[in-house]
């Protein structure tokens, strides 16, 4: 069993670092607590992307988030990719490195998509062994993020939350819980998202993702092109109650608004956390108070969804 505290410190409230916002961040130095960078976007030799990344990493804590580790693939681990990740991490000193519990490539062909795994003992052992190898190469624990999925396999013998928990335990890695992905998969696979939260070990949850999605009625697609909807905010509150204050960021990858709009949306995340822990133990309140985010005035016409937080039916 791991030590009771294996996580790193609470970073506060962050945003995904996007090209559209590079200039704004350097000019205005918003009081965002931290930024998450998409590792693959910066695995280039130099030029503007690296210039901005390094300038921003000098001023803010950053974390690295990848999409190409293909940790569940039956292809050998791509050591060149891991070496490139390690070099980037040496250059920008991220607080942590994450990727997804999925597979992306097979026989050297990359789907560039986060494809689901069958939830079996075989897969738990396979993924956990590869996570251990990755952690040896990178010299640190990594975070694995749950993905949105649209199909399930006949071979699966356990629920997704049990699969994620078993891999994290066997590999001694950390978890990045994507609250939106839990909601999307719950809708597509008809499970109760609170069941998911209940089964994840709080000691391993290092980070939350929040995002929007596209709702087609019968199914939901994880598109990251909308504001965080009420349904995800509601689940976020439930996750805070379960896990305590967790470093939280908003992912926006398409239809990206001006920076002040995302700043306002992130304020909503902090507001919910403050409400959740208003009457909480001293330790949780103290942790939350470490966040410096949210004291600046940003000019935005953006209207954040301020509907009352609704409880998820259990």
């Amino acid at each position, binding site marked *: 069993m791991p030590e009771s505290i294996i996580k790193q410190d609470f970073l506060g409230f962050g945003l995904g670092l996007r090209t559209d916002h590079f200039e704004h961040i350097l000019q205005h130095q918003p009081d965002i607590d931290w930024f998450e960078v998409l590792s693959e976007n910066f695995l280039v030799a130099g030029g*503007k992307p690296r210039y901005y990344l390094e300038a921003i990493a000098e001023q803010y804590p950053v974390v690295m988030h990848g999409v*190409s580790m293909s940790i*569940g693939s039956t292809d050998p681990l791509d050591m060149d990719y891991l070496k490139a990740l390690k070099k980037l991490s040496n250059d920008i000193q991220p607080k942590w490195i994450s990727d997804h519990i999925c597979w992306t490539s097979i026989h050297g062909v990359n789907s560039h998509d986060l494809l689901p795994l069958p939830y079996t003992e*075989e897969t738990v052992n396979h993924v956990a062994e590869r996570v251990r190898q990755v952690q040896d190469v990178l010299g640190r624990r990594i975070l694995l993020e749950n993905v949105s999925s*649209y199909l399930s396999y*006949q071979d699966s013998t356990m629920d997704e939350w049990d699969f994620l928990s078993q891999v994290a335990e066997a590999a001694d890695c950390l978890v990045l819980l994507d609250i939106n992905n839990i909601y999307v998969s719950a809708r597509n696979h008809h499970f109760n998202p609170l069941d998911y939260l209940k089964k994840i070990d709080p000691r391993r949850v290092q980070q939350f993702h929040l995002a929007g999605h596209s709702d087609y009625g019968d199914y939901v697609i994880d598109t990251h092109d909308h504001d965080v909807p009420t349904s995800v905010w509601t689940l976020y509150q439930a996750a805070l109650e379960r896990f305590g204050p967790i470093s939280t960021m908003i992912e926006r990858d398409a239809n990206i608004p001006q920076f002040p709009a995302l700043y306002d949306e992130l304020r909503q995340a902090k507001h919910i956390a403050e409400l959740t822990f208003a009457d909480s133990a001293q330790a949780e309140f103290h942790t939350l108070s470490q966040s410096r985010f949210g004291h600046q005035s940003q000019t935005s016409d953006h209207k954040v969804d301020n509907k009352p937080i609704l409880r998820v039916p259990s």
Partner: protein
Amino acid sequence: MSRLAEIQQQFMAYLLSDETNNDHNKCQSAMQANMSQQAGISADIRLAIYANAYRIRLKETIETDHEILGRYLGDDLFDKMAADYTRAHPSANQSLRQFCDALPDFLQQDLFFKQHPIIADLARFERRLLNAFDAADSTSASFSDLQAISPELWPNCCLRFHPSVQIFTCSSNAVEAWQALKADSTPPAPDYQSTRAWLLWRGQTRLTEFASLTAAQHALLLGFIQGNNFAEQCEQMLEWHDEQSAPMMVLQTMQTWFQQGLIRAVVSD
């Protein structure tokens, strides 16, 4: 083969197949057999979500990397190119940054697109722009670095260029068409009358720049990139200049390159 490997192989085979592929139905059936029955949407729709995402993501990558080529082709031809290229060249890289690296060669060899060679030239030019954009960083040398070298050593001096420096040559007016489309103007009709050469580099403000090269400038730059020294390049310039003006032309051109940040080092043997 493990069951996990089998599922992954069948999933990828499904993603790579489409309606034009004879095996598409077989691939789809194999994947459906792997899936559990679920309430709500059908297995077909669940699979199609992945197939659509695969194609849309790659098409968006081509659109982003080759915006002007897309405008040149128009929607229908762009869609055809994206579909044909994606079918012919599944991604073999960890980053989408490299997905279109084979696009110029594909357009040059494809039976349909090679009928219009300017299309491959446009794609190749845009790849070069991207390569200049995120090439490695480097410090730049200045003219004073050359002046600091004793003049009797100048004939043996060679130049080392910034990693973003590239030469683009083509037999069409692709760059002129690119410039017109970039400025929202109508591109000129394709012209294959002469070979053109362009210098591409990343400027000191990290913006990608390019400039046309005369035949003499092209030969001068190419020779220096290939490792020729100052004396050899002065001699080569005799094809365009007399003995008095050739060294002056070389020096003046080098001075411009220093100002543009193209040269990272002067080395003397």
